[in-house]
């Protein structure tokens, strides 16, 4: 069992000693069932930390965002950030380390194991409760989740509430940490890896096209999926037609010559372009935290686009993202034996 008191105590010590700039964890919010990201800077705030299956957010994102923030705020507090990291979050940290985006010394990882459980999919929860709001959500063993509502408590099978990614996750514990909370539970998975992907991938081509066209048509291109992704840390993204990295040396020509690969218009074709480019850019980098899919306000299965490349990377190139910070990345490496049959 993950003892939240231990995490709190650790957070408190870290803050008391001034070893870290802040502790990133989870706290209860006011907006709904989900926990929300917490930024603790004072030791006494440690008491507000929580840990339960609503702690969905991949907090690795905030290491990235805080870095940007420090830059705009011109802060030079070099102390590390402590971050509560689940298995998937820790894999994101690995990718960030692999890409030199963060340095190991910049982060203190409070690893938490999902211990055979995982986090919920808020949409599944809403459906299961037929719209009622949940007040508490807790794992009840590895296979059930207790959900409290205003009208009492119910226990539901975990497989009905857990996020797809958790159902498919075989390594639900941090790969990289400074301190670990909970036990590494090996080899659990409710559904096979890529189960959600396969349901779509197995459709006939025409159906797949219709399926994706409908989704691309619906996308409002708010880019929440990008904003939430810890790997989408570029200052300038190919999809932005107006945002650019402006430095004192940025010339007029550089700005004028920004390539508009993608128009801002939320047409299906432009959205498709956006999603495919994003998927390609995340090939070998996406660690399947599925945050992109969760935050999409119009429920586009963004995760599957990343999943399909993740599966290919695994099957064709035996590449698993987020495992080793020392490894070259998927697309900056190759092996002689890579598939060649598809080439004419």
């Amino acid at each position, binding site marked *: 069992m993950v003892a939240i008191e231990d995490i709190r105590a650790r957070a408190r010590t870290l803050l008391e000693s001034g070893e870290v700039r802040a502790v990133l964890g989870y706290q209860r919010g006011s907006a709904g069932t989900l926990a929300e990201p917490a930024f603790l800077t004072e030791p006494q705030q440690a008491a507000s930390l929580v840990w339960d299956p609503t702690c969905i957010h991949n907090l690795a994102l905030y290491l990235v965002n805080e870095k940007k923030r420090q830059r705009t705020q011109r802060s030079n507090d070099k102390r590390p950030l402590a971050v509560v990291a689940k298995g998937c979050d820790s894999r994101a940290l690995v990718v960030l380390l692999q890409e030199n985006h963060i340095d190991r010394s910049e982060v203190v990882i409070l690893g938490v194991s999902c211990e055979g459980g995982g986090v919920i999919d808020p949409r599944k929860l809403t459906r299961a409760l037929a719209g009622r709001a949940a007040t508490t959500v807790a794992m009840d063993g590895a296979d059930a989740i207790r959900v409290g509502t205003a009208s009492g408590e119910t226990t539901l099978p975990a497989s009905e509430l857990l996020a797809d990614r958790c159902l498919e996750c075989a390594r639900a514990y941090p790969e990289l940490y400074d301190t670990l909370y909970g036990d590494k539970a090996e080899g659990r998975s409710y559904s096979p890896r890529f189960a959600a992907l396969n349901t779509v991938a197995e459709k006939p081509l025409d159906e797949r096209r219709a399926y994706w066209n409908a989704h691309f048509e619906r996308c409002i291109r708010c880019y929440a999926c990008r904003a939430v992704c810890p790997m989408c840390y570029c200052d300038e993204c190919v999809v932005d037609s107006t945002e650019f990295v402006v430095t*004192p040396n940025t010339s007029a020509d550089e700005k004028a010559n920004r390539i508009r690969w993608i128009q801002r218009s939320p047409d299906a074709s432009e959205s498709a372009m956006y999603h495919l480019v994003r998927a390609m850019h995340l090939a070998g980098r996406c660690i399947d935290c599925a945050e992109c899919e969760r935050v999409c306000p119009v429920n586009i299965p963004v995760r599957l686009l990343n999943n399909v490349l993740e599966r290919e990377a695994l099957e064709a190139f035996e590449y698993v993202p987020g495992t080793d910070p020392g490894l070259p990345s998927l697309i900056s490496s190759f092996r002689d034996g890579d598939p060649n049959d598809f080439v004419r």
Partner: protein
Amino acid sequence: MEAILQKDRLGQWVAQLSTRARVFAPAFVDDVWGYGPVETGAEVPLDHGNTTRPPKNFVFPQREVLYRFRVQDRHAPQITPTVPEPEPAVVFGVRPCDGRAMVRNDKVFTCGVVDPYYQARRDKVVFVGLACSAPPSPNCFCQSVGGSPHSEDGLDVLMTELEGRYHVKTLTARGLELLDAARSLFDDAGAADAGEVERAHAAARAYPQRTLASQEQVVDGLKRNFDSPKWAELARACIGCGACTYLCPSCHCFDINDEITGTSPLAGERVRTWDNCQFPDFTMHSSGHNPRDDTGSRLRQRVAHKLLYFVENHGIQQCTGCGRCITHCPVGIDIVRVTHEVAEV
């Protein structure tokens, strides 16, 4: 006028209307509530919660071509305006908060300089509202911002669900036309109905909702605490995704860009698309200077625009309490809590 429509006649009404206009109603597609066209004869189940996507698209689509240009000869470019001439549309199931948002959008787009694109669409859309019997979302707070579960502002018709039937009240001439188009389907509303409507409305009002402090308190509090460090603190988790404003029924910011469709000769469209004050580049100058360069100042812009500036400019709050920005914020940023914490009310 007020009338009664038996629930089983809703389909017929819609069918009647379909002959003269495109009819839209809430639709649940891929787990998301939005508005979709109603096929003739199809059911119009008006049992939706608060739609995820507000009906502002009908008057302010996410993409609007302002005009097309063609520069065959650089001395004489051709410009073709594309002010839309939409077919009439009837939108069913609009919640009162979204109706009230229309009033706010009108203020932006039609007071002073009239936006012809908005106007052209607005002229052709009729909003048939549906009173809430209970807050459709746990984050509703319409009553705190001057609305109510049966507010009529901005709507052309208000329907109230009663036992087995709808009470239908027309609010504008255009609304009346909708009824007139199918007079025979409606029964006259009697006094009993009126009483029942009153009771339904009262019950809906009595339902507990989230509450936001009064307009005066908020205005005053936000002014007093404009420079509060709390903005930055509360916005620290914000990822700048803009879901809050894209989904807000009364957010209206937009961007204008040229989209090239051909290079020889140069041809393209000047396009207006939704934009978002939560995006970091929203206010960034060419020099890189950004007047709102952190999430704190951007959150302040959103909240203050809704609850302070709009009041200062138009005398009313822009927020209608639909709660979407709270529900859909991926990191739990909550306009009510933020306002209360910053404004210290």
